């Protein structure tokens, strides 16, 4: 009879927000609870009654790491409800803005949250002493992401020039030219990031599960497209609630999502790379080949490699997007559009995966109902399923090592716990 081991991490370090891991392993069986105890903030409740042109500003405050994703999802949902058309320039600038924010978030996860585990440090702080070049590269790339967001949005966290219908200010061609040359120089850092992350000694663990991501012909989708999966899901924004079930669990404030009729699923970099690899740039594909990454990959730890490949793809693609910008002066103010009654739906890819926003508005443009599904709610059940399969394989280790490796799996998902603790209003 095998021994039972109990592993507890009261406050999972190096992830955004406050969560706890409870694991009980005996033989081939593991019980796992990923407990999210950070209190909910009830965004869906207090958005009721607020005006359509401030929803993106308010939902931005759901997260300090992926505010751009919440802004863009909210803006798209509002524009969908009010039938507002936006220009090609707005679409390109929103794409660039979002790409900058993915760079910010990805670099933070890779270097500051995840890398110390694989290099044997408790954090990036002692790493800065021994591996100064690595830390300097991280800081350069992080600043590049910040500066790209600030250039387009007017502020690196919670951008301000984004409004319903477009932007209140369009940066100058000169500013874009100088950003473009910085991005071109940054390709080298991005390639080195993929090489650096690919050398980590990943646990040899695979678990086939459904991977879900936005997809679009001809581009690596982050701002729009259809939601598709490795198991045949293929839906539009409006169909999200009919195909994705969300349920409450009694031990955590985060709700758990499943695909109706199937089960838990994975969202984030690994799902995106698996589904959209062919839309990555030639440079990204050649570096993927060099480091031996091939889709489909079902090792959740390799989320890190996928995330690093995305950093390269983001840097590389943004050069192209800037080159093709048709800059003109088309400023929009925050009160340009008249509200309409209606419902709007939107899905974007936040850095850590699929993000869904939907709203109903009355004739004055006030919110009647709000429904937000952040990526970490969608990954929560899948993280537990991964741990249930993974922990029995390492059950012979001491509890400290089991805890560390379990944390590493959680960190590979880059969960955003603060985002996850508020789900939709039930009627």
């Amino acid at each position, binding site marked *: 009879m095998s021994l039972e081991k109990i592993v507890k991490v009261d406050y999972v*370090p*190096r*992830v*955004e*927000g*406050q969560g706890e891991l409870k694991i009980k392993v005996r033989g081939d069986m593991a019980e796992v609870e990923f407990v999210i*105890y950070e*209190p*909910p*903030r*009830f*965004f869906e*409740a*207090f958005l*009721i*009654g*607020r*005006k359509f042109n*401030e929803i993106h500003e*308010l939902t931005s*405050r759901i997260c*300090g790491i992926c505010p751009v994703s919440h802004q863009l999802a909210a803006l798209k949902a509002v524009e969908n409800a009010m039938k507002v058309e936006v220009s090609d320039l707005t679409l390109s600038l929103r794409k660039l803005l979002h790409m900058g924010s993915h760079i910010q978030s990805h670099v933070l996860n890779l270097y*500051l*949250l995840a890398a110390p585990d694989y290099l044997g440090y*408790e*954090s*990036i*702080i002692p790493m*800065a002493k021994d591996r*100064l070049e690595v830390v*300097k590269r991280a*800081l350069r790339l*992080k*600043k590049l992401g*910040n500066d790209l967001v600030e250039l387009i949005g*007017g*502020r690196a*966290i*919670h951008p*301000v*020039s984004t*409004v319903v219908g477009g932007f*209140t*200010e369009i940066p100058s061609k000169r500013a874009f030219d100088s950003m473009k040359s910085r991005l071109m120089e940054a390709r080298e850092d991005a390639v080195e990031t993929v090489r650096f992350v690919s050398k980590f000694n990943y646990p040899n663990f695979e678990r086939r599960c459904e991977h879900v991501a936005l997809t679009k012909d001809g581009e690596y989708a982050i701002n729009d497209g259809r939601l598709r999966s490795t198991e045949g899901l293929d839906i539009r924004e409006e169909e999200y609630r009919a195909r994705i079930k969300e*349920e*409450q669990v*009694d*031990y955590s*404030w985060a*709700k758990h999502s499943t695909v109706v009729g199937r089960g838990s699923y994975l969202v984030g970099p690994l799902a995106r790379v698996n589904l959209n690899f062919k839309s990555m740039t030639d440079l990204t594909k050649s570096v993927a080949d060099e480091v031996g990454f091939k889709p489909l990959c079902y090792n959740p730890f390799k989320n890190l490699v996928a995330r690093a490949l995305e950093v390269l793809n983001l840097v590389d693609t943004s050069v192209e997007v800037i080159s093709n910008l048709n800059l003109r002066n088309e*400023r929009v*103010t*925050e*009160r340009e559009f008249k509200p309409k009654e209606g419902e709007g739906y939107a899905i974007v890819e936040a850095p850590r995966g699929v993000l869904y926003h939907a709203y109903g508005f009355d004739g004055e443009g006030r919110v009647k109902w709000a429904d937000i599904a952040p990526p970490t709610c969608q990954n929560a059940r899948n993280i537990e399923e991964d741990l249930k399969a993974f922990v029995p394989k390492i059950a012979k280790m001491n509890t400290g090592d089991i805890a560390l490796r379990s944390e590493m799996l959680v960190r590979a998902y880059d969960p955003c716990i603060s985002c996850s603790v*508020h*789900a*939709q*209003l*039930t*009627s």
Partner: protein
Amino acid sequence: MEEEFLDLLKNVEISYFVMAKRENHEGPYDAAFIEGSVSTPRELNELRELRIRSKTLVAFGDCACSGCVPSILNWIPPAVSARVYENFSLIHSKKESFQRVTPLRDFVEVDVELRGCPPRRELILEVLKSLLIGRKPGLKKYSVCMECKMKENVGLLTSEKRPGMGPVTQAGCGAICPTVGRVCEGCYGPMSDANAPSLAREFMELCGLSKDDVVQKFRKYAGLDSKFEGEAG
């Protein structure tokens, strides 16, 4: 603060920061930077403990200083917020009771309020440097309109009759919103001698806002602040 990060590490020791470190220490601390507001008994205990263990307590960001956007919840009837979860009472009783969103200063003495959503990096550095050399941080108390004027922006309220919160809002952000043609939403909270009733009147008479619109404007980043008491409703 990418450019300052390495220099910063030479001058400060980060003792407790679970979101970035695996090894953390229980204090005592020279300074604690506390993010977020208080909404559960567990958080309140934690805050009181931190106050005891820290020489200087910095309320870091609007949530800690004023409750920020999540404080709008305090005006929502509990029955509406309970609907966010199918079985609210189950989690509520199993986990812990959830209460009103409350800024830190309502429970403990706060030494420095680092305002903004988010606080600007220059202000964070000012506080850190001041702590290191033992002086009072030079945080601005006057209105953000001063910063806006120094940037030579056109006043959106006076010239375009757009409802900007600038006249009652504390400086510090660098007037970034009017600089890109957007009205100030007041994310640095009230300035030291804010005249909220007067601005609320301007919003209605000059900009044509309804009473309800005015309430929502004041009930956004610092609705709980006593300086906005009459206007946030």
